């Protein structure tokens, strides 16, 4: 799957995106990112979107899906 990083998550991880080559749940992706990027633990509360829809931790994400880390939004 492709993982997109925006806002503060992009700064903390030091890149805009990364790839994960296996299927896993949203919760497992969060743990994967925390293990891969030491500063990911500094993230404020954040949401996750899978294929451009907000998703919950139990959703399974396939290898062809796109997952986005959504830090607290601040539009407008």
């Amino acid at each position, binding site marked *: 799957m492709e993982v*997109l990083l*925006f*806002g*503060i998550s*992009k*700064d903390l991880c030091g890149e805009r995106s990364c790839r994960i080559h296996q299927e896993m749940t949203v919760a497992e992706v969060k743990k994967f990112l925390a293990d891969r990027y030491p500063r990911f633990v500094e993230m*404020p509360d954040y949401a996750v*979107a899978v294929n*451009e*829809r*907000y998703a919950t931790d139990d959703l399974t994400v396939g290898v062809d899906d796109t997952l*986005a880390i*959504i*830090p*607290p*939004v*601040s*539009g*407008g």
Partner: protein
Amino acid sequence: MSRSKDIRVESSTLSVDAAYLSILDEACGGNCLFIGTARNHNRGAEVTHLDFETYRSMALKEMGSIADEAMDRFDIRHMAIHHREGNVGLRDIAVIIAVSAVHRDAAFQACRFGIDELKKRVPTWKKEHLLDGSHWVDDRP
């Protein structure tokens, strides 16, 4: 009865005229526009400019959903939601919500609903540039 929505994420200056024209309808007597601009201060610090990062494809979908929901909830005809991305200077427009309805009450309510929902769920992030650095804005007033 025609209804429409006009959803945009723009990397150049937003036009109030464009938003207004997109909602004008001779059947509508109430037109309401909310215009959000970049201000020069936040929490006691002097702001020099803003930078908006957007998850563009999802932002367009969420903005479209907000317009659809507004049309279900309120008796309105047209809704425009335009948001900037990139570098936004002081007094520049960051967002426009424009709504037309037969009567004003529905237009006011839908306009308020539009900006409130946008601030809750549209994936856009504002970086504030201050005199002595910059930071992502993570609150939701």
